[in-house]
């Protein structure tokens, strides 16, 4: 039997990164993700791996870009307003096709905001703030156990698709301890020898760059990236369904908010109301197709987020049925309480479910 231990989300991510062979970490302190860098500082040094307390988040993400060119597993972590500083380099990494895992343990914004809970970076992660046509794969854990599993998956997808991956973690989850098991990394290592930069020995020289003065070549390059994104959108959407098969009401939520949604779902199920929860695990690629299928049986789709409705637009893009789409949310602070959400849902569904 594999033993469980009480693990904090941030530490779980750091341990999983080490466990699957991450050899380079670059960071700068910002709450609520600082424990990742603190934990790795000693562990990486003990193993003679690369760890730099960078001069800034801009420094950190660019060190990650350089390290990624070596073909190794590379991670940086930060939070919200500081991830904003890294957006330029994510665009470069996407264009350069360099695999970087970036962990964003979210705090509240806009601006410096504060360290209160919030899921305000859904747009920043899925749409991105870098320039040009590019995409970043975004994974969203909802438990400490999933922090571990999705850290493994982040490294795997980053190298498989040679693309930056963001692990988008609620501050609540980064700071929360719950029982979890450090499982083994289930993914194979990817051979990077065909593209990495390690000196032009016994092969022609290589260069990795995003600048392309020839418009046709630049056009072709972006089209090639989009072929890759199309493949990602076909192969990688991942989600969790909870009691969705017969659901007339589907709650959509990501991250830890989905845990609240399940509790609420149970509450309504006890009253005989057919409710289910749909939780996207990959925020990009968003599981539009499955949500679309489920929505044809649903009268109501109710999106619940700790922001002002950022995933809501993806829910709207997914749903093609006549389901009524509503939103319950709050931008910052104490997580929405069960009773608040229940009352809000009752208000939305009262016409069809007069009995409750």
């Amino acid at each position, binding site marked *: 039997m594999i033993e469980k231990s009480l693990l904090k989300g941030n530490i779980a991510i750091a341990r999983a990164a080490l466990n699957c062979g991450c050899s380079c970490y*670059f960071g700068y302190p910002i709450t609520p993700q600082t424990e990742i860098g603190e934990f790795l500082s000693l562990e990486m040094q003990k193993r003679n791996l690369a760890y730099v307390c960078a001069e800034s988040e801009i420094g950190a993400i*660019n060190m990650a870009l350089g390290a990624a060119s070596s073909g190794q597993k590379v991670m940086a972590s930060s939070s919200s307003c500081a991830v904003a500083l890294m957006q330029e380099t994510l665009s470069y990494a996407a264009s350069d096709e360099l695999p970087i895992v970036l962990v964003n343990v979210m705090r509240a914004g806009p601006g410096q905001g504060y360290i209160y809970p919030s899921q305000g970076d859904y747009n920043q992660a899925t749409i991105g703030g870098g320039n040009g046509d590019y995409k970043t794969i975004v994974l969203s854990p909802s438990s400490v156990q999933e922090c571990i599993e999705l850290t493994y998956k982040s490294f795997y997808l980053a190298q498989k698709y040679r693309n930056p991956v963001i692990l988008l973690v609620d501050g609540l989850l980064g700071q929360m301890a719950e029982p979890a098991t450090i499982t083994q990394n289930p993914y194979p290592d990817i051979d990077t020898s065909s593209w990495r930069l390690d000196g032009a*020995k016994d092969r022609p020289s290589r260069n990795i760059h995003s600048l392309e003065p020839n418009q046709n070549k630049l056009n072709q390059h972006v089209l090639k990236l989009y072929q890759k994104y199309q493949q990602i959108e076909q192969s990688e959407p991942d989600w969790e369904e909870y009691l969705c098969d017969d659901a007339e009401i589907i709650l959509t939520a990501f991250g830890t908010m989905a845990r609240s949604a399940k509790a609420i779902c149970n509450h309504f199920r006890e009253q005989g109301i057919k409710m289910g929860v749909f939780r996207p695990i990959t925020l990009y690629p968003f599981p539009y197709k499955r949500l679309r299928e489920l929505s044809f049986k649903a009268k109501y789709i109710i999106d619940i987020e700790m922001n002002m409705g950022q995933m809501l637009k993806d829910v709207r893009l997914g749903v093609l049925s006549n389901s009524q789409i509503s939103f319950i949310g709050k931008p910052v602070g104490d997580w929405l309480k069960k009773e608040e959400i229940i009352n809000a849902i009752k208000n939305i569904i009262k016409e069809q479910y007069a009995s409750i």
Partner: protein
Amino acid sequence: MQVYSIPNSIKKDSKFTFCKGCDHGVAIKIIAEIIDELNLRENTVAISSSGCSVLLYDFLDIDCLEAPHGRACAVATGVKRAHRAKGEEKFVFTYQGDGDFASIGLGESMHSALRGENITAICINNTNYGMTGGQMGPTSIMGQLTTTSPLGRNKEYHGFPIKTAEQIALCEGTKFSARVALYDVKNILKAKKTIKKAFECQLKNKGFSFVEILSSCPTNWKLSAQDSHKKIAEELTKIYPLDIFKDTIDD
């Protein structure tokens, strides 16, 4: 008899695409010669950045990575450290302009020097932003006319320029910092010797090494190649003296 040949580390099909009279070509050629002489070609990753210097990979037949504007020293840090994490020492150098190294990238540049990162940074100082058409840069001299200092750089209105090699020499982690020029054969040879020394600093694993190259920008200076070199020799070297500001490689 010595027969002239193109260095092995220069791409055989490369064409000179810089403006006529620009010193980038000479700078890249002597770097290529040094790479050949030190037998570094198969163990080097070079980092270029934004501006005219980004085109390094069009000429050098070695592994090259482009950094976002100003971030070359951070990217080089990542490259160096990553290979070291798997027990390999790669030779890593950056090739940057003065705007890249000393303006937008000053934080990354100076912190790499402060950490004593074992990389080499080469900075082409042509006292303006060349690729964008000659705007005032961090190194534009007092009185210099540029498209964004049309009345001349003025200390009250624009502030002072940076003496990069002197500043970088102040960092504890810097083991070698020098300024060279390319305006005549004597200086080209001296520049080559100096850059070679900076490269050897890294090969001896001593810490950060830096060479600033005073370089012509005839197009934006609106001078001929000859007059540009004359300007460097007679005017710029008075403000930016050619010297080795720090050499503690053997300390």
